[in-house]
């Protein structure tokens, strides 16, 4: 019964987001359409993190690494396409591209490989050590991006022409929202499906009781590592979209602040609730835009909201809307 309630709450939330974008477009307010795109993309990044943090119990404080790598994959490939300079000349020539699908593929690949390496080392620890090691890896990538002048270093890298998507005008705010929202729906569907599968059962047990998982004949380490990689790929996809939304990628996308923000989305929306991070990202962006318009001190409100959630409403926004999470 609670399952259906959560389903209804999730559909209503997603419909509200799409409705807001459509309404803003009809009202001739592309600013608000872009705001909805921002929510969809940050929500997507949070959905990725939630897979590791909420469902797998891996509190990664370094997911900005994947968000930023996805962003840089997008920025660098587009930069090469814009300057007609091949990305690689040896051992074979690789040209840049200004189309989203292959860029997403590269972003996913880069993030997947990075997560496999980072996860293989970090997942040998747990608890606060895991948090610190993921943070350390993300900071290493952050400082590398700052000190590597080829792609803008500290100043970042502009994407002068937004990348294309077959059949759509990506400069049209509503079309771009459609792409971001579509990506979000795909990630939600894939995550939901995944969590109900055998792998999901194992990942859930890796969080709830790793001793039981091993005793049931399933080694927790490869289960966690796979979950971490899938999580990173989704967050990286969001990073590539975010770079296109802003037409800009900079080391800020890799900074620990962003890792923290992603955790805030997950906690605010409801840890381990599928659509939770979207609700969290929406709340964050709304606060930032509307309260932030009135006072610079909007993070104070955010802090209080977060405190309230942690102290009184562990289920976050989804918990308030749909009651406690239930397993069958």
């Amino acid at each position, binding site marked *: 019964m609670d399952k259906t309630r959560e389903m209804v709450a999730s559909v209503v939330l997603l419909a509200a987001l799409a409705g807001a974008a459509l309404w803003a477009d009809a009202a001739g307010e592309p600013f608000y359409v872009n705001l909805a795109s921002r929510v969809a993309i940050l929500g997507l990044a949070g959905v990725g993190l939630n897979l590791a943090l909420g469902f797998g119990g891996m509190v990664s404080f370094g997911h900005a690494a994947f968000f930023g790598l996805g962003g840089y994959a997008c920025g660098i490939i587009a930069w090469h396409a814009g300057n007609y300079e091949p990305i690689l000349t040896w051992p074979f020539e690789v040209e840049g591209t200004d189309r989203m699908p292959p860029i997403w593929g590269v972003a996913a690949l880069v993030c997947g490989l990075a997560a496999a390496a980072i996860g293989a080392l970090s997942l040998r620890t747990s608890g606060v050590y895991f948090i610190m090691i993921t943070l350390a890896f993300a900071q290493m990538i952050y400082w590398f991006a700052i000190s590597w002048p080829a792609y803008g270093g500290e100043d970042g890298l502009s994407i002068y022409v937004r990348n294309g998507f077959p059949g759509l005008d990506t400069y049209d705010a509503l079309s771009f929202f459609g792409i971001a929202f579509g990506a979000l729906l795909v990630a939600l569907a894939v995550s939901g499906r995944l969590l109900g*599968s055998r792998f999901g059962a194992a990942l859930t*047990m890796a969080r709830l*009781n790793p001793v039981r998982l091993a005793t*049931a*004949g*399933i080694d927790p380490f*490869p289960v966690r590592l796979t979950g971490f990689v899938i999580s990173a790929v989704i967050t990286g996809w969001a990073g590539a979209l975010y770079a296109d939304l802003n037409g800009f990628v900079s080391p800020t996308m890799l900074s620990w602040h962003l890792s923290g923000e992603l955790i805030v989305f997950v906690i605010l929306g409801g840890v381990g609730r599928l659509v939770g991070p979207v609700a969290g990202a929406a709340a964050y962006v709304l606060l930032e835009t509307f309260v932030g318009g009135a006072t610079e001190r909007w993070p104070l409100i955010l802090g209080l909201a977060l405190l309230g959630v942690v102290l009184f409403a562990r289920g976050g926004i989804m918990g308030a809307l749909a009651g406690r999470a239930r397993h069958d």
Partner: protein
Amino acid sequence: MTEPALAVEGLRKAFGGLTATDDVSLDLRAGEIHALIGPNGAGKSTLIGQIAGWIAPDAGRVRLAGRDVTGLGVAERARLGLGRSFQVSSLAAPLSARRNVMLAAQAREGSSFRFWRQVRRDRALVAAAEAALARVGLAGRGNVPTAELSHGERRLVEVACALALGPKALLLDEPMAGLGAEGSGALADLLETLKAEAPILLVEHDMDAVFRLADRVSVLVAGRVIASGPVAEIRADPEVRRAYLGED
């Protein structure tokens, strides 16, 4: 003679200056319940930990159905048929009893790296879990979250998890602990029927249960097996009486 289901050969483990397991050898033969008893601090938990694969021994070997598993991890030993229950129930409390058991069936049935098909519609898994639950007398309780089950029922769910592995040997760590007379009687009856399927290494404090159920008993004191043999022999052994049963 056929291979014992489980054999421990010359196992040694020391923590600093403390020898927790001192040259322990014992075996578990088809169809029997072999009880392991000993006072607190005798090294039972350390021994169980080494058999299950959580603790690496300093020397010695563990064989499961003739295969040397000393170098293998916990999960691999479980897949090879070492079923286990814990001294303190170790289940995932928010999940239903069925889900807990299905996970063990999943490992037996093949890979856990399947990402699409939904487990709740996976008839083979559900049926295997239901069969294991029925075997321990919990048919019809599968939907109940583990947290809402009674202490005794949780013990039984753990046994069902072990059975769902298709075990070659069962390692039950104080399964009677905390059960009332009725509960432990029911569990004792169950163990009697299970031993034909998979022999049981039973660690137990309840002496009545041990002397009623066990075919053989090994007595562990200060990391050493001081006596091992049929129940009657152990009961009469003066050294056991002195060291363990508190008589002289």
